[in-house]
């Protein structure tokens, strides 16, 4: 059965992530939970897919550069009817299509990620293409804060600002963690907003779990007459929605067992936005 609800209710999205993570015995749950609200707002209010077609020529482009959060995107794509329920109950089954990191062969995923620092540049290319064609398509690239360690992102930032790619928005999931620990301890980033501003972006920082604030900031960016590319820095919590996962980097790697699955489901069902 194909779900057609399209409410992008964040409790439902988190439940989908938990269900598929449990079914597939997969990791990266915390990486998905920090971007649930960001994706919900994007898919609900901003991304345009004519005829609900993930391949539509005039679509907006959403590039999940931090491919580790792909389960959150799968959950949204389920609501759009692009993925069937079986894909979730059979996640990671032999011969299945949905991988643990984003893969461009899945309709709706614009790039193959997991190796970090790729999607940003692909997004800049998509935005440049829209500019050359004179279309009003917008391109979003969602990157992790840890991913900002990667050099190509800053190469692409220079290019996007030089070419006035006002149709490009980078969204930074600033959850404060990367694979081996806190970003502040591994490679400190300082002010991400100030960094992008110094590269020529218009930048805003929001609470990445406040859907109203996210929506307002994105709208504010697009309403601007500035020619600059946009940056939205979203302060988030890795593992958001399940107290024992929040701020606990072990959920970058840990698989759910029967007990933690039940506890997480309960926490998500009871969580209040």
């Amino acid at each position, binding site marked *: 059965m194909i779900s057609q609800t399209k409410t992008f209710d964040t409790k439902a999205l988190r439940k989908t992530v938990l269900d598929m993570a449990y079914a597939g015995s997969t990791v990266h749950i915390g990486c998905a939970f920090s971007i649930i609200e960001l994706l919900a707002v994007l898919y609900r209010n901003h991304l345009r897919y004519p005829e609900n077609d993930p391949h539509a*020529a005039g679509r907006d482009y959403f590039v999940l550069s931090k491919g580790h959060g792909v389960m959150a995107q799968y959950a949204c794509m389920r609501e759009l009817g692009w993925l069937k329920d079986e894909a979730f109950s059979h996640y990671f089954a032999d011969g299945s299509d949905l991988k643990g990191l984003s893969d*461009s*062969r899945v309709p709706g995923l*614009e*790039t*193959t990620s997991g*190796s970090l*620092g*790729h*999607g*940003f*540049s*692909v*997004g*800049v*290319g*998509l*935005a*440049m*293409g*829209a500019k*050359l*064609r004179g279309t009003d398509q917008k391109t979003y690239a969602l990157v992790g804060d840890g991913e900002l360690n990667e*050099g*190509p992102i800053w*190469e*692409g930032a*220079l*290019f996007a600002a*030089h070419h006035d790619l006002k149709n490009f928005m980078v969204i930074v999931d600033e959850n404060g963690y990367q694979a081996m620990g806190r970003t502040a301890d591994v490679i400190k980033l300082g002010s991400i907003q100030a960094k992008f501003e110094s590269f020529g972006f218009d930048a805003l920082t929001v609470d990445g779990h406040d859907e109203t604030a996210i929506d307002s900031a994105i709208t504010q960016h697009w309403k601007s007459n500035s020619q600059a590319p946009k940056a939205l820095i979203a302060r988030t919590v890795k593992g958001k929605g399940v107290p024992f996962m929040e701020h606990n980097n072990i959920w970058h790697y840990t698989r759910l067992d029967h007990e933690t699955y039940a506890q997480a489901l309960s926490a998500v069902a009871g969580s209040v936005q």
Partner: protein
Amino acid sequence: MRAAFSEALVRLAKADSNVLLLTGDHGYALFDDFRRECPAQYINAGIAEQNMVGMAAGLARAGFRPFVYGLSAFIPVRVVEQIKLDVAHDKLPVVFIGDGAGFVYSHLGTSHQSTEDIACTRAIPDLSVYSPADRFEVTACMNMAYQAKAPVYLRMGKSDRGDVHVAAPQVKIGRLLEVTPGKAGDITFIASGAFVRTAMNIAAGSYPDAAVWSAPFIKPINSKHVASICEKSRVVVVLEEHSVLGGLGSAIAEIASEFAPVRILRVGVRDRFSHRCGTYEYLLQEHGLDRPAIEQRIRDFLTAN
């Protein structure tokens, strides 16, 4: 050869406005014509090759036909992962031009020399690898790269050694091109790029009955055609301005070992970097790739069995 490249690029771009040239801040005079004729299709991506290839993937996804230009040491070697993941994985129609391959930058040292680029690209699925030898092959390779609508790496090496064909040859993807007919049962030379000229010179001077073939397509390469050539040969000598590990010599040896076993001498860069600098000819000597050294190796090979 470079003029043929520029001419082909301008011609393709004028015929198809989706053709874009992306350069990593290289090609100073080479792109004068392109910039004059097709200024809106020219993008200098700056000294930022990784981002350039990622952008090319995005542009290709948006329907454009990017030609990505750089020195072979950087395009493809510096960006192998971007080529693999952003472009080849989706069979996107991006053409990579790696200029100055081999020892062209003989005075500049290892950073600008490129003798591992074919090995780096051959193993990437869905990526073709072309290595033209003269202006005719450049034109043919550019046309085929455009028509392929798929990822292609086009290697341009030493470009001032003259034509190896007397006229535009009939080119078919994957097939070798005969530049000097030979007698069955004699030595066969197979070479690519600038070393086709070397093979022709050696054959003309020392082995008048030897056939010389140019291999502009390293991948895909027509196994049956290669096997049929090997079957008619007493020995095969492969010459290339590339490492003997993973290049044309390896490709020929892989096919021959399976379909037409024959003794094969692989002449190329042995597993070493350049130690010193000098003229192109000096550097060939340092690597044992000057004509006298190659001829000695061939004699040793022929008498070794």
